[in-house]
């Protein structure tokens, strides 16, 4: 498109990116710094005496937390897709009466602050005696993603050509069969987008795990880090090493699924 591509813009772009990502670099740098140099002034800008003692601490102390978060993330993805995809198909293609109202409710639902949901869930779970359970946390985490999921899916599914669906109908497929054999396979991209965000939000959740699951046997990695900060605020290399490990899903997503991520960010806000 542009004939000339001035190199200095690339240089400025790289410099801006370095400034922006400095905190991420610093997290990695501190995670490799030996405890003896942690309070050195000025701090080493590079990990000159790199040590993996922080990461050893992660492996010996934080693995169960990581496992729990993985489990909760996957559970949240399954629940979110199972609830959101059929609903979106209906909203996009089956023209149910009252869909305008439902769309409105879904938009509003996304705006409710987490602390309020946490308080309500806490009261309910306490009375039911299901505080500190993994599936209770999965349900709470899924509330972060279900409305978003329905909106993303229905935006995508209304782009599926009607001819495709009526062809299936002529071949004798019922609504459920059409959904399962045509709509779901065609919507693969949006399933990836919704799953990514559902996983990431469940993985990153702090407010629900700290209110609904703070005393359970299985605790999440965000709570693991939080307790680390509270308990031994001297071992910052271990804290930052845990932070680095907790960031891996985000990094993986960005590398393998960048276009889905960008699509998810935009789809919520910009329609055309």
């Amino acid at each position: 498109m542009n004939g000339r591509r001035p190199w200095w813009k690339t240089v400025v772009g790289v410099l801006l990116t370095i400034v922006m990502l400095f905190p991420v670099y610093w997290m990695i740098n501190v995670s490799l710094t030996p405890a003896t140099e942690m309070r050195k002034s000025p701090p080493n800008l590079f990990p000159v005496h790199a040590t993996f003692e922080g990461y050893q601490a992660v492996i010996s102390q934080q693995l169960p937390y990581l496992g729990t978060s993985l489990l909760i993330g996957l559970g949240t993805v399954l629940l979110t897709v199972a609830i959101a995809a059929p609903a979106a198909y209906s909203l996009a293609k089956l023209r149910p009466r009252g869909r305008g109202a439902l769309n409105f409710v879904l938009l509003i639902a996304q705006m409710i602050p987490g602390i309020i949901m946490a308080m309500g869930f806490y009261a309910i779970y306490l009375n039911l005696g299901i505080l500190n359970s993994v599936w209770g946390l999965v349900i709470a985490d899924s509330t972060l993603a279900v409305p978003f999921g329905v909106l993303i899916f229905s935006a995508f599914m209304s782009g599926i050509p009607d001819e495709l669906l009526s062809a299936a109908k002529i071949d004798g497929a019922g609504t459920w069969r059409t959904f399962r054999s045509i709509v779901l396979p065609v919507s693969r991209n949006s399933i990836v987008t919704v799953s990514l965000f559902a996983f990431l939000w469940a993985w990153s959740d702090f407010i629900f795990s700290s209110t609904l699951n703070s005393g359970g046997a299985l605790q999440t990695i965000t709570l693991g880090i939080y307790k680390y900060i509270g308990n031994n605020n001297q071992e910052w290399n271990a804290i930052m090493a845990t932070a680095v490990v907790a960031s891996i899903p985000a990094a993986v997503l960005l590398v393998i699924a960048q276009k889905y991520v960008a699509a998810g960010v935009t789809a919520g806000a910009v329609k055309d």
Partner: protein
Amino acid sequence: MTTTQTAPQGAVRDQSGAAGTAAPPRARRRRSGQWAAWAFLAPVVVYLIVFYAFPLYRNIELSVRDYTVRSFVQGDAPFVGLDNYFKVFQNPTFGPAILHTGLFTVISIAFQFTFGMALAVFFHQNFRLSATLRALFLVPWLLPLIVSASTWSWMLNSDSGVVNSALHAMGLPAVNWLTSPDWALTSVIIANIWIGIPFNLVILYSGLQNIPTELYEAAALDGANGWQKFWRITFPLLRPVSAITLLLGLIYTLKVFDIIWIMTRGGPGMSSTTLATWSYQLGFASTLPDFSPAAAVGNVLIVIALIFGVIYIRTQRKQELA
């Protein structure tokens, strides 16, 4: 390339504005079709009632009764009407919490939006590596908030933080970022701006992609410089997208809790307390939790969020019709 997978052109417009457009032959099948349509919707409707409406109802109930730890379990708390709300309004923390919520939200958004806009315009110039660098800018937004917050905590540490060490190298005095009441709110705002820039960048960038390049070419022929192009073309044409970005930012920023709680716990004193952290502190962070006032504070927050939420939805509808 950002908008290709989801939201095909006009997709959402179809759902919101097309009540009576079904073709006449379809009308006969309508009734059985409604059954199927609602069968597919049933799970999400049940879900919304049980896992959204019920917790919200429970929250309102908490706020109009006087719950203690014991009555919380037994469920026999006396009804007190709006007493909890009056108590909250008269509490010395209420004023500062509202002020900090407002400052936190407005200052964060002003900077996020300005930086996001500048970066979007910059990255829109399609230089070498621009796509890769733009992707890297997403990192802060994707990191778990507890990771970002704890990293910033250590960077802003008074004695060993890299920020104070940089200030020292420039001959400036050290700042007690997280431990001084004068700086705590500024510190959490800085961290929050950093986290919010990518979101603004991505949305504004996708808005820029929809501005026809011919406009810029015509302006260039007329001898417009970069600054004039921005203020005469980009900025006016980006106004709808900007409105949406600002409103969404407002709704997201109002409810920020994790960053503030992890970095300062709303302190020192109440110098960085917002409605969200205050509510959490009342309900979960003390040995004798005050669930009822906590729920009341939460409900004040929800009212504010919903006011902007409705403005957002109306703005979006108006743009889809236009």
